[in-house]
């Protein structure tokens, strides 16, 4: 049984190792090179400067915390919005299932850039929302909704909600209805059934969806570039700028690996917590 599992995962693991893991790891040494502006990367150098800068610089720390906070916030909002929706899809009237699923998936069929532009048209200072509110006389000056947390949350939740919902639908469908029915016949309230049975049984789905949304959020580049602009930076835009604008690849590499390490640690911790919760 176990050997079968390895054999089945083998081809994908190999592809991932060759085309993803190896190239990613090849950029690891870059983070330990010295970068001299105007001159380039010093060949054969070895230094911890880039990593030391990240630890000692409060700007990098601020962006790192902002990125992780944004990841948690987007994940939480996606979960809160996605669970009822997934419930509706999984347990609601059968004729609603397909239309609802299509509605959830539909945004994923549009290019990321187009979707972000859509939000710009809505959220900009002279965008649809601000114009409408101004015309209605509700506000005097435009409400700033772009290049800040608001725009970023809206854009990212919109993009990653489908991932959460699809994960949760599968998880909710997998909950055996007999167990819930048994609890009901033994006098459990609906609320208690949900909290004591359904929710823990869907924990793996919640965890999988949350990890997916969290990881996608902290590594998102296009949406933060467009809705965050030059003033509201996250790690991904910072890494991009270090590589492509300042040409300081060592710092870019160091930032990227710090982000990866923290993300892995969070996923590991979340996994442990969720496992305990699912068991009890």
């Amino acid at each position, binding site marked *: 049984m176990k050997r079968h599992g390895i054999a089945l995962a083998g081809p994908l693991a190999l592809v991932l190792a060759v085309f993803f893991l*190896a*190239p990613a790891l*090849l*950029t690891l*040494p*870059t983070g330990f*090179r010295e970068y001299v*502006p*105007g*001159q*380039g*990367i010093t*060949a054969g150098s070895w230094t911890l400067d880039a990593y030391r800068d990240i630890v000692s610089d409060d*700007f990098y720390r*601020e962006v790192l915390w902002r990125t992780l906070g944004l990841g948690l916030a987007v994940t939480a909002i996606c979960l809160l919005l996605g669970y009822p929706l997934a419930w509706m899809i999984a347990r609601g009237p059968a004729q609603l299932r397909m239309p609802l699923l299509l509605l959830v998936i539909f945004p994923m069929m549009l290019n990321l850039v187009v979707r972000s532009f859509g939000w710009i048209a809505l959220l900009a*200072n*002279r965008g649809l929302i601000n114009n409408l509110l101004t015309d209605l006389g509700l506000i005097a000056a435009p409400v700033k909704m772009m290049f800040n947390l608001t725009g970023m949350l809206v854009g990212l939740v919109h993009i990653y909600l489908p991932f959460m919902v699809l994960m949760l639908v599968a998880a909710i469908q997998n909950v055996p209805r007999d167990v819930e029915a048994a609890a009901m016949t033994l006098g459990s309230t609906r609320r208690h059934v949900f909290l004591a049975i359904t929710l823990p049984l869907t924990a793996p789905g919640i965890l999988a969806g949350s990890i997916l949304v969290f990881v996608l959020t902290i590594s998102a580049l296009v949406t933060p570039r467009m809705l965050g*602009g*030059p*003033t509201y*930076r996250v790690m991904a835009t910072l890494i991009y*700028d270090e*590589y*492509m*604008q*300042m*040409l*300081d*690849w060592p710092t870019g590499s160091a930032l990227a690996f710090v982000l990866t390490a923290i993300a892995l640690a969070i996923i590991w911790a979340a996994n442990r917590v969720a496992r305990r919760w699912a068991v009890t």
Partner: protein
Amino acid sequence: MTSSIRTAAAAVVALGLGLAAPARADELTVGAFGGSFADNVKACHIAAFEKATGATVALKLGNSSQFAAAVRAGAGSPDMDVIFIDNSLAVQIRNEKLAEPLQRAKLSHAGEIIPNAWGVDDSYVVAMVSATALVYNPKLVKAPPTSWMDLADPAYAGKYAIGDISGTSGLQFLLALNKMKGGTLDNLDPGFEAIKPLAKGSAVLYTQADQLLSLFERGEIAIAAWYPDRAGVAMDKGLSLAVAYPKEGSVGILPVVQIPKGSKKVELAHKFIDTVLSADGQKCFSERAYIGSVNKGVTLSDKVSHIAPTGAALDSMWFIDPDVLAKQIPGWTRRWQREVAR
């Protein structure tokens, strides 16, 4: 860096820039800026080059720092044979020993070029002259602006725009302000002090030049530190704009052409650069793009010389040592991220 890392990095950058089609023997790959710039390169340079040589040109679009990153990633086997790039980054490439020196003997128009267009060791040659200057909407701005500080005029509160430091105009406006306030290239404190309130009040810190088009069009901004060439093209499309060169001197922008080291088509690349430098090529590009020429034989039409940096505006223009820029820009950018755009 080992070659495998370089190959991997090259692959990553290549993916970022969009995968190039496999180059044919008689195909020259040219890196150029997008939008109307690429259209003008096609119309003025590529058409003439293809006709004269029978070779074809594949255009690769990107910005200067993307090209610099790609050349570094290519590490001696570049995926482009000629690049249009900002002069400071051309110096960076040259300092990284990744520039193929130009051979003036192979450029029939070399003698027609203004002498200071050549980069150190002929590692590049300036292809055109533009500037960061003031662009305004004459319907909203009654008296033409004369100074960089006119942006701070309370009359334009919230109705002006400056660029983020990632764009040339943002950096150059910062440096111009710094110079006005008594700073030097070694001490940008006065500049940063002066720009903080201006950046805060700016309608947008634009990262793409054409972001300003819609803002000007809708009347959301009246004035901006921007590019005369972009303004000229926008005026052709019917936008109400005018250009003013501030009395403190505008700042020169010098896009250059350069051959990345290791290009397999150095001969052909020289022929392309020769086409770019020719009086015909220069005249055509200048007229279409509202940009200054480096060929002494070119006389610009009145319409263009009214907008492009010429005459007194050109004489008072500040050309910043690209070597200093290459060394300082990363540090200035970091300071900007922390103090201005935070």
